[in-house]
Each structure stands twice: as structure tokens, then as C-alpha cells.
């Protein structure tokens, strides 16, 4: 049953050193505030899972918190490479990073299978693809009716998932709208789930019958953090800060510049700064 609590407490209670953790969000609703709190709390030895690790995983890898990353697209979307991830993979800075790489289809299916309580996912994929040769977690199953050989990957089952959502109601039910990505699956696949939200409303009486709602008993903690997805966006609240994504490419190029930026913008801040950051992005949302 979800409890409302400050982000600091929710991260401290739910994320431990060595955990397998997903901060999910498919370009939309990326839980930046929660990830920054995890960085401030200095968690170590994490296995990070995400289809599209972008800035927050670049930051966590660059801060030396990550042992392994499971992913399907490690880029700054529309901008280029993740330079801290690249530095870790190519030069082991600040430490070596083990990677388990999949395709989007594999990861999406793996989250789906995790939410469905299954040990593996089956799909028609990886045909002729090189990842099969370098990833032992890509295997095969044979259809017992047609004999067709399909791809199989282990389901994703994080210890804890963090997502950002638009709204909670007073009971702690969660509403996610717009590009919903794999957030529902990431929450249901995990042992624990922490959700940051833009706001709390009385009820969801005006919400569409089939909207993506996570009942309060499917969530561990709810934290009110307005702007908590910045520089990602929250549909209906503020738009994506594309300029920040473009800037990140320069910040992350240089180790010293990265370290300074993290101190100033993450370590020396708390989550209240996010509300300020999205002020100028609210016009067109």
C-alpha cells in the first residue's frame, strides 16, 4: 500500500547498495529528481536497467555508482552518444562498467514478462543480429506447434523501480498519461516501486475509464516533486527542455566539467530545485 513520503525517505527506504534498479521513462516522464536523490545518497554497486539510459544513467555511471547496465539504446536521443557511459566502457572511468545489451523489442518484452510474473519473454527477434553472439542472455525457444524458433530473453525483475507520473489521488493511485512507455510494466515487474508525481488531486473521477492508472497497492511510495522529470517532460505540465539535452553533450565531454556540474547542480541541491527549473517550460505543455 502506497505511502506518501518525502523523496529523501522514499529513496533511503527503497534503494540499497547492490540493488537492481530501473529508473524508467521513454523520453517522457523520466524520474530525474529521484535519480538525483539516489546520487546524493551515494548508492554503490547498482545494476541499472532501462531501455533508453540517457542523462540520469550517464550521470550515475559517471559518479561511479554503477556496476552493470542492462539497456537497449545508450544515446542522448537526437543528440548523440552518452559520453560518461562511453568513457566507462572504453576507459573504465571512474570504474569499469559491465553491460548487457538488448534490442528495444527484447527489453520491452522482458519488462512485459516481468510484470506478468514470467521467467522469460518470447518474441520473433534478433534474426541475423550480432547481439546474439555477445549476450548469453539471448537464447531460443521452439514453438511446440509450428517448430518455429523464436528468441527468448530473461524477464526484467528489478528490486525497485522509480517512475515519475503526472498525478496521484489522495488514496495514492497513480495516473500516467501520454507516452506511457514501459512504466506500468516497470512498476509491476519490481518488488518495490517509488513514484514521484507533479501533484496530488482529490480523486480521479474525471479520468478516462481505460487510462493508465496504477492502484495504490501496486506502489510502495508516492512523493510529490513538481518538475521532477526535468529536463524530460510531463505531458500537460511542461515541455521537454531540448536545449538542456543539447547542453549535456558538452558538459559530459569533459571529466572535470562533468564533476563540477554534478556538484553544483545535483550534490549541492535538493529536489525542490526541479520546480524552479520547469517554470520557463510551462507555456506550451
Amino acid at each position, binding site marked *: 500500500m502506497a505511502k506518501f513520503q518525502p523523496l529523501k525517505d522514499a529513496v533511503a527506504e527503497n534503494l540499497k547498495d547492490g540493488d537492481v534498479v530501473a529508473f524508467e521513462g*521513454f*523520453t*517522457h516522464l523520466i524520474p530525474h529528481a529521484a535519480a538525483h536523490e539516489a546520487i546524493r545518497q551515494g548508492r554503490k554497486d547498482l545494476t541499472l536497467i532501462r*531501455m*533508453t539510459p540517457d542523462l540520469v544513467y550517464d550521470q550515475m555511471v559517471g559518479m561511479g555508482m554503477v556496476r552493470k547496465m542492462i*539497456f*537497449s*539504446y*545508450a*544515446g542522448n*536521443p*537526437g*543528440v548523440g*552518444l*552518452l559520453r560518461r557511459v*562511453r568513457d566507462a*566502457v*572504453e576507459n573504465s572511468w571512474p570504474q569499469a562498467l559491465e553491460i548487457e*545489451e538488448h*534490442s*528495444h*523489442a527484447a527489453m*520491452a*518484452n522482458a*519488462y*512485459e514478462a516481468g510484470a506478468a510474473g514470467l521467467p522469460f519473454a518470447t*518474441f*520473433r*527477434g*534478433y*534474426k*541475423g*543480429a*550480432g*547481439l546474439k553472439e*555477445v549476450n548469453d542472455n539471448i537464447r531460443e525457444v521452439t514453438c511446440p506447434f509450428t517448430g*518455429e*524458433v523464436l528468441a527468448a530473453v530473461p524477464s526484467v525483475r528489478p528490486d525497485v523501480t522509480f517512475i515519475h507520473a503526472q498525478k496521484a489521488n489522495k488514496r495514492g493511485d497513480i495516473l500516467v498519461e*501520454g*507516452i*506511457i*512507455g*514501459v512504466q*506500468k*510494466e516497470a512498476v509491476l515487474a519490481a518488488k518495490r516501486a517509488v513514484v514521484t508525481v507533479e501533484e496530488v488531486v482529490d480523486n480521479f473521477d474525471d479520468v478516462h475509464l481505460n487510462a*493508465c492508472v496504477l492502484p495504490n497497492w501496486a506502489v510502495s511510495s508516492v512523493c510529490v516533486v513538481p518538475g521532477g522529470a526535468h529536463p524530460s*517532460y510531463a*505531458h500537460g505540465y*511542461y*515541455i*521537454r*527542455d*531540448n*536545449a538542456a*539535452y*543539447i547542453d549535456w553533450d558538452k558538459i559530459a565531454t569533459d571529466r572535470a566539467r562533468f564533476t563540477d556540474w554534478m556538484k553544483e547542480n545535483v550534490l549541492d541541491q535538493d529536489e525542490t530545485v526541479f520546480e524552479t527549473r520547469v517554470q*520557463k*517550460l*510551462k*507555456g506550451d505543455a
Partner: protein
Amino acid sequence: MSDLDFTADEMMTIAAARALSNDDICFVGIGAPSAACNVARLTHAPDITLIYESGTIGTAPDVLPLSIGDGELCDTAVTTVSVPEMFRYWLQGGRVSVGFLGAAQLDKFGNINTTVIGDYDNPKTRLPGGGGAPEIASSCGEIFITMKQSLRGMVDKIDFFTSFGHGTGGDDREKLGMTTKGPTLLITDLAVWRPDPETKEFVVRSLHPGVTREQVQETCGWTVIFADDLTETPVPTELELTTLRDLKARTKAAHEGAAA
């Protein structure tokens, strides 16, 4: 040649746009494919269905998205589904007619690498990876590829098979049990290429206006075959150019500034 001025980049995008039809259901990669698909939609193919892997089906963005999940894509979509549904029902379900991909490295059989330069375990350059490409390449009815020519990009042997094109040519796809056509078109900044029906090696079918055979060969890492009936790519029309430039201008303004 026309008296319109245009860049090689613009020619590439417009030539790519022309390959799409009004009835296509198109899975759009980010970057150059996104521009081409939207130019098609804004010119000769107003009813084309554009799908982005973020789950947005039937989008009609006013500006090009920076990521594949900008809010604009969702606001203008017929519907937005979850990412697992996108990959299971819509892509794997066989409902997409054209997949449009870019490439960091490409070989003459349409195999693509966007994973690593060098060895996978000790890469010279770690690239972003495949994302949706491995299954886009196998599940869409056919694949269009667009990229700028360079010796670094168009290579004899790619370092990693991120997505499978025609393998080593011939019936390699059939041998792997694939029933889709694979790469049927390559549009670069210099030329339009199509695979030979038998060998599946890309053959230059038309040169963009002002481009020579030598330019194409100098920026390509394999020995280029030119079609016997080699033609010239028609120059961009004024409508095509204006549409593309307006789209780029709107996009630049939107991505540089903050909200209105």
C-alpha cells in the same frame, strides 16, 4: 538542372521523402528518416501513417522531434500505446509496411552497425546501440535506409551486425526464416541506390543533380556498381524545398528556445 539552389542534404531528404506513398505505414527512425517522412506527409502523402517507437501511431508533428518521444508526437497522434504493445502488436504483428533507418556503418548488402566501432568487448568507439533497429529490420515489409556518404560510414565490412540487411547477399534472409523484403532502397546525399534483384548488392540507380560517379565512389568503401540505365534524380520542386526548409526552421526555433 533547375535554377533552385539546394544542398546535398536537402536533396537526400527530399529523395527519401519521395519514396514514401500515401498508403504506407511507416516506422520512423530518428534524424534524417524523421525529416524525410514528415516532408512526405507535408507534400505528396498527406495520409501516410507515421509511427515512432515511443508508441505514437499516426503522428503529424508540426516540428521535428528531437527525441523519438517528444510531446508533439503524442499530441498529434491517432493514439499512443505502451512500448511493449508497439513492439508486439504493431511492429512484430506485421502491420508496418516501411521501416526507415539511418546508419553509422553500412555495407553493400544493407547490413547496419550502430553499436560499436572496433571490437565489441574492447571498442574503439562505443555507439548508442540498436534500439528498435534489429526488429525493425526483420519485421517491416521493407526497409529504406538514408545516410550521408563517407568512407567511414559506407564500408566493405561493418564492425558489428546491429541489424541484418541481406547478410552476404542472395537469399540470406530467406535462409534465416525472414519473410520480409529487407533493404530495398538506400538514399544518400549523392545518389539513390537499390539492391540488385539477385545478388542484393546495392546498385546506384540515379545520381543527384551535379553529382559524378567519381564522387560516389570516393565516398564509398566498396566498389560501386552503377546501373546500366543510370538516371539523374529529379531536382527538388519548390514545394518540396519550401516544405523542408520551413519544417527545419520551425524545428530549430522550437529546440533552441524554451516554451513560448
